[in-house]
């Protein structure tokens, strides 16, 4: 239990540092910015209480907001994404359900399940994030394009991370 806790605390810190140091510096023509810190919400075990999930998402979003100087934008998007997580899981649930002792990883549920799960939640987060950031419906399609292109890049990075980091 304690080991689990320490492991997830490490993921939490490592993802924040990675996002701030590496991924915030990636952008193509101000259209594509990956926000990979949400991988933390994707990785949390099935057994995590739902309320704790929301609380985690809020703290994570708030830390991002503090570092990037955007009051409320990251936290709103991340909390909405965490709220949708149980529903997305239900939507893509395998025939025998999610058994105890399993984790939401590609190695355990297969590539197809993981890709669907990731892409769905990343799109929810990024669409909310980019519209809240612009905070107007002017340039509607421009914002949509930015959200979708960034979702694509974030999803790709997260899926690749499953091959290299979270192999078991």
């Amino acid at each position, binding site marked *: 239990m304690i080991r689990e806790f320490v492991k997830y605390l490490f993921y939490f810190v490592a993802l924040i540092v990675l996002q701030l140091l590496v991924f915030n510096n990636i952008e193509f023509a*101000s259209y594509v910015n990956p926000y990979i810190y949400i991988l933390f919400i994707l990785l949390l075990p099935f057994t995590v209480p739902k309320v704790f999930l929301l609380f985690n998402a809020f703290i994570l979003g708030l830390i991002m907001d503090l*570092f*990037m100087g955007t009051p409320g934008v990251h936290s*709103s998007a991340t*909390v909405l994404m965490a*709220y949708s997580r149980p529903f997305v899981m239900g939507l893509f649930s395998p025939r025998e359900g999610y058994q105890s002792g399993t984790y939401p990883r590609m190695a355990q549920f297969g590539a197809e399940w993981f890709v669907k799960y990731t892409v769905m939640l990343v799109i929810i987060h990024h669409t909310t994030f980019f519209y809240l950031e*612009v905070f107007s419906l002017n340039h509607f399609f421009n914002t949509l394009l930015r959200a979708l292109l960034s979702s694509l890049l974030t999803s790709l990075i997260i899926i690749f991370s499953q091959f290299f980091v979270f192999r078991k």
Partner: protein
Amino acid sequence: MRNLFRFIAQHHFLIFFLIIETFSLFLLINSNPYQKVVFYNASHKFSGRASVRMSNIRDYFSLHYENRKLAEENARLYNNLNSSYSWLRTDSVFPGDTLARRKYWYITARVINNSVNKQYNYITLDKGSESGIRPEMAVINTDGIIGIVKSVSPNYASVLSFLNKDFTVNAKIKKNGYFGPLSWLGKSADYGTLVDIPHHVRVAEGDTIITSGFGGVFPEGILIGTISDFKLKGGNYYEIKVKLSNDFKKLDYVKVIRSFEKVEIDSLENASSQ
């Protein structure tokens, strides 16, 4: 009452979600300029030191580029020295002359946090009110304009970047002096848009755009960029696309300009508009 408790127990996930999401949106919507400044100051306290560390590391990668820029600027300054001219008359003014009145004072600072990918971008500098930086001062570097200081804490300053939809600067076409407001439309970090240039003015691709000096924040003649495209909008005015001379993705050392005339200009203009 028991029904209420049962309702809460049943829907605690939804209720808790609504509370947190409302709070987040409250943070977002309720941030009027004053609260934004408060948030930025809190943000600086929290992340200022970390940003300094990161920027120290990042500096190593741009040393070569910065060195070249410094060398170029040194050469330019040497060219302006009195000793670079042969004086026809030795009784003319010299830089320390008491007849000359100082208009601008330059403070160098370093960018420790910067973004180009948002719609409202801000830049953080490593100097603040203790170094003499005040809100409303102009920020430039060798390549052109960067922004205007928005808020300061004792050791840090937050700068409204040119790449911010709230930013507007009065600009003019260098060759004929026609001026208009120049702003950023929030798309590419390489282009700004100049409007209100009447249709009879001759413009051409490649024309230089500089600051007009109106308002007293920016000195006159600071480079902004060159015209890359223009079209008539509504038949009477040009909408001109300006390729920015500054690469906002690799800002490092900047100059903050204190204008000694702005207070006087402002008070005069306020007095006459009342």
